[in-house]
């Protein structure tokens, strides 16, 4: 049986940077899966996942989310964002208990905008699902940058793993 779910790269944070990058992503898979177990050295933050070197000023991503905080459910929609998000209603904190799995579909095609489906979890705060779209252009995704918001720094031991899935 052919191999269809393969590791591409993984990075473990040392506690000194708020940016993790995956470059030269092979174009040999159908979909990407990004698994994150993330904490921050201080405060509560998101991680923004940007494709192909998109800058902070890029505002061509949008998302819709549904979340629960333990007492109520909420949902919202946002436009003008600068990236896919590891979560949107749910913030990570200084523990390493925040986990997020992001699937980016059909990332090598050059005719459609790229979309993602993310599940985020922090048992002490809430649970969330996010769908998002990158409307910048139709280029294949060749790199991803995972940047903590507000110049935050990833806590030592935060793990970022990128996998590729082949449809055939």
């Amino acid at each position, binding site marked *: 049986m052919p191999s269809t*779910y393969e590791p591409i790269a993984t990075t473990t944070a040392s506690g000194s940077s708020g940016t993790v990058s995956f470059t030269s992503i092979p174009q040999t898979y159908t979909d990407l899966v990004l698994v994150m177990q993330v904490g921050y050295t201080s405060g509560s933050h998101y991680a923004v996942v940007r494709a192909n070197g998109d800058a902070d000023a890029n505002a061509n991503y949008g998302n819709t989310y549904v979340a629960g905080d*333990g007492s109520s459910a909420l949902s919202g929609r946002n436009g003008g964002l600068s990236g896919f998000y590891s979560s949107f209603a749910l913030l990570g904190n200084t523990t390493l208990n925040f986990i997020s799995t992001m699937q980016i579909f059909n990332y090598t095609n050059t005719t459609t905008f790229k979309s993602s489906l993310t*599940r985020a979890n922090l048992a002490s705060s809430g649970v969330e699902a996010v769908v998002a779209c990158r409307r910048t252009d139709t280029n294949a995704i060749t790199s991803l940058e995972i940047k903590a918001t507000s110049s935050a720094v990833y806590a030592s031991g935060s793990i970022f793993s990128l996998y590729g899935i082949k449809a055939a």
Partner: protein
Amino acid sequence: MANTFTKIAAVMVGSGGASSIDFTSIPSTYTDLQILISARSDASSGSNAADISIRLNNDSGTNYSYRGLTGTGSTSGSFSLSGETQFTYIAFAGSSNVTSNTFGNSSVYFPNYAGATNKSLSADVVTENNATLTYMRLNAGLWANTAAINRMTLTIVSANFVQYSTATLYGIKNS
């Protein structure tokens, strides 16, 4: 490059049903674990969904906490539990009230299950029913224990797994 999504063990419940499904001696050689469950219970009272509980490493201490987001087809809500002795309501099986031969489906993901940190999980679970009322739930869980997960025990609250219920445990390596 090596395939990284590997079956560790699989169980299909036989004709007599089963009160539990137990995965023991889980190796620590992977990065993440994922368990996929297709299950139906013999629960005959209550709602259309029967809750599947997961206990890790046979730990019955009050080390389990989780939050969930639930939809029924007409309403939504959120809940939280802490100080639990297992993840009592972490996955779904169909109850005997739902359409015949219909099973609930659950996917539970444990990243970094052999690391030195407390263990978080992400669970997406549904029941199906050929009627207006059914359930879906997203769960975030935390087992406040730094031990590597080496055992996973599945039970159904006050009920049993029926024949053809399945649970498959996969290991995922990030290198």
